[in-house]
C-alpha cells in the first residue's frame, strides 16, 4: 500500500490580499478548528496557513491521544481538519504572516507578497523547534543535525544517532528513529523524563535505545571535507560532576522544546517573557479584536486536543465580537 498525499500548493495569484472579517494566522489544529467554527458561523474567514500547512501535527508520526482516534497519523488528521474547515466555508492561502499592526480599518496583516485588513485576527501560529545554540549546530544543519525525524530518519538507516530532550516529542521521535537507526542514544539533562508515563515505559523497554541521564550536549563535531560531510561525534558533559566525554555519532536530532511563533505580533499584543501571547479567559489577548489559540499562547498543556478546543473558543469569541 503506497501512501499518497493529495492536495496542491497554491499559486502566488491566489494570495490576493484585501479585506476579510476574520483572519486566522496559522496552519495547525487550532487554526483549522477555528476555521471550521468560523465557517459555520458564516464569518468571512481566511486562513493564512503558512509555508508548512499542518504545523507540528503534520510532523507527528502517530497521534494516540486525540479522542476518537486511537492511532492516526498527524498528517492525516491535519489534512482532514483542513478539508473540514474548507467545506465549512473558510478560505485558505498558503502564505505566511510577516507583520501585523493596528490600522484604522482593522488589523493590517502583511505577508511576503500581499496585505490584508481584518476586522478580527486569530493568532494560531503555533511554535517552532527550539535550537540548542551550541557550536556545530548551524554548521551541520542538514548534514546530520535535524529537527524533523519524519523528514530525515531514512538517511540514518543502520547508523547511530543521538536524540536530545526528554519531553513527549523527544521520546516519540526517539521511538520512531529506532525503525531506521541501529542505535538511538537519548541525552537528557535531568535524571527523569517529562514525557507521558506511557511513552516513558515504551522508551525504557526498547533495546535499541540507550539513555544518557543528567547529561548535556556541548558541541556537535564533524568533518565538512569527508564524503558525507556530516556529523561524526558530539562532546557531552555530565551535569553531576562536569566530566566531559566524546561520543561517536552519525546524526543529532534536537527536540528540546518549542518557541512560540510570535515574531510578527510583537508590538500588536502583549507577550509573556517566554514570547507566548498573554491571554485571559483562554483566548483573549490585550486587544479586543485579537485572539490567540493553541501552542502560541501561554497555556499549560500543548496538545492537539487543547489547540483544537482553543480554536473553537476563539472562533466563538470572534463571532460574538463581530456579530453581536
Amino acid at each position, binding site marked *: 500500500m503506497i501512501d499518497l498525499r*493529495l492536495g*496542491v500548493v497554491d499559486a502566488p495569484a491566489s494570495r490576493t490580499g484585501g479585506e476579510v472579517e476574520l483572519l486566522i494566522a496559522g496552519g495547525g489544529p487550532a487554526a483549522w478548528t477555528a476555521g471550521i467554527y468560523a465557517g459555520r458561523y458564516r464569518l468571512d474567514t481566511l486562513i493564512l496557513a503558512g509555508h508548512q500547512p499542518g504545523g507540528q501535527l503534520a510532523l507527528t508520526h502517530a497521534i494516540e491521544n486525540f479522542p476518537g482516534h486511537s492511532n492516526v497519523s498527524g498528517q492525516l488528521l491535519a489534512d482532514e481538519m483542513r478539508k473540514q474547515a474548507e467545506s465549512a466555508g473558510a478560505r485558505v492561502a498558503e502564505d505566511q504572516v510577516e507583520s501585523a499592526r493596528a490600522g484604522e480599518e482593522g488589523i493590517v496583516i502583511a505577508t511576503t507578497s500581499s496585505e490584508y485588513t481584518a476586522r478580527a485576527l486569530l493568532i494560531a501560529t503555533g511554535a517552532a523547534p527550539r535550537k540548542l545554540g551550541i557550536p556545530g549546530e548551524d554548521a551541520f544543519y*542538514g548534514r546530520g543535525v535535524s529537527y524533523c525525524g*519524519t523528514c530525515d530518519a531514512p538517511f540514518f538507516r543502520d547508523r547511530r544517532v543521538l536524540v536530545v530532550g526528554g519531553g513527549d516529542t523527544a521520546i516519540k521521535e526517539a521511538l520512531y528513529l529506532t525503525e531506521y537507526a541501529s542505535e538511538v542514544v537519548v541525552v537528557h539533562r535531568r535524571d527523569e523524563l517529562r514525557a507521558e508515563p506511557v511513552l516513558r515505559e515504551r522508551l525504557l523497554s526498547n533495546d535499541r535505545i540507550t539513555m544518557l541521564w543528567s547529561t548535556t550536549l556541548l558541541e556537535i563535531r564533524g568533518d565538512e571535507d569527508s564524503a558525507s560531510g556530516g556529523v561524526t561525534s558530539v562532546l557531552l558533559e555530565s551535569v553531576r560532576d562536569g566530566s566531559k566525554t566524546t561520543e561517536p555519532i552519525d546524526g543529532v536530532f534536537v527536540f528540546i522544546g518549542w518557541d512560540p511563533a510570535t515574531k510578527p505580533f510583537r508590538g500588536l499584543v502583549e507577550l509573556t517573557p517566554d514570547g507566548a501571547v498573554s491571554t485571559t479567559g483562554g483566548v483573549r489577548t490585550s486587544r479586543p479584536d485579537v485572539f490567540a489559540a493553541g501552542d502560541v499562547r501561554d497555556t499549560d498543556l500543548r496538545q492537539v486536543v487543547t489547540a483544537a478546543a482553543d480554536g473553537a473558543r476563539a472562533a466563538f469569541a470572534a463571532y460574538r465580537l463581530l456579530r453581536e
Partner: protein
Amino acid sequence: MGILSENDAREIRKILADMEGEVTLTIFTQKLECETCPESEMIVSELTELSDRLSMVRINPLQDKGRAEELGVERVPAILVSDGSHARVRFYGLPSGYEFSSLLTAIVDAGRSGDLVESATRGFLDRLGIDLDMKVFVTPTCPYCPRAVVLAHRLAASSERVRAEAIEANEYPLLSTKYRVQGVPRTVINDRYYVEGALPEIHLVQALEKALADEKAEPGEIDLVRYLEPPSEAEAEESGPE
C-alpha cells in the same frame, strides 16, 4: 483501480477539474534494475484516466536512448510534466507521500494560464544571463518538501533558462551521497549553490540573485543563507547574541 483508491480518484478529479490546458506526463521507465518503475507507471497511468486534458507518453530509455539523451534524462523512473512545450519540470523516483502532492501541483500548474511566480521573480528570470539547473532532494515523509519542489518547478516552468528536478533521496543513494544529502529538502543549484529547508519564494530569489552576482565568492559550495536579507536591527537585538 490499482494504486489510487476510489476516494483518492474522486478528490483528484476535483483537483484536476481546474486545469485549463492540455498537460503531458512523459514517463521514463524500464523493467531492468528499477524497483519503483512499475508503481510509478501505474500512478501516472491511473492519473491520466482522471482528466481528459491529461495524457501520458511512455519511454523506455534502454530502447529509445536517443530520446533520453536528447532530454537529458539520466535516471529512472523519471516523470516530466509540461504543457507539451518543454521538458524542464522533472521528478525522479516514485512520486509517493508528499511527493505525490508536488506532482499534482506540477500538473495543475502546467494546465494553468496565469503566472506561477511573483512579479519580482518574473524580473529575476528575465534578467538571468545563465542557465540554472536545480536539484531538490526530498523524502516522501517530509511535509516541508513540496514547498521547495514546487518553487523550483515553477521557476523552471516560467523560464527557458531553468531546469528543475525533484529527486527522491532514498532511491538514489549514490546521488544523495555525491550531493551530501542528510536532510531534506536540500536544493542544489548548478552544483554550487545550496540551501537547506524550504525558503519562501521572495527570499530564495533575492538570495540567489545576489549569490550569482557575487564575483568575490570563493570557489566550491556556497550556502545561500549567507545572502539572505539580514534581520532588521530591532530583530537582531531581540534574538540576542548567538
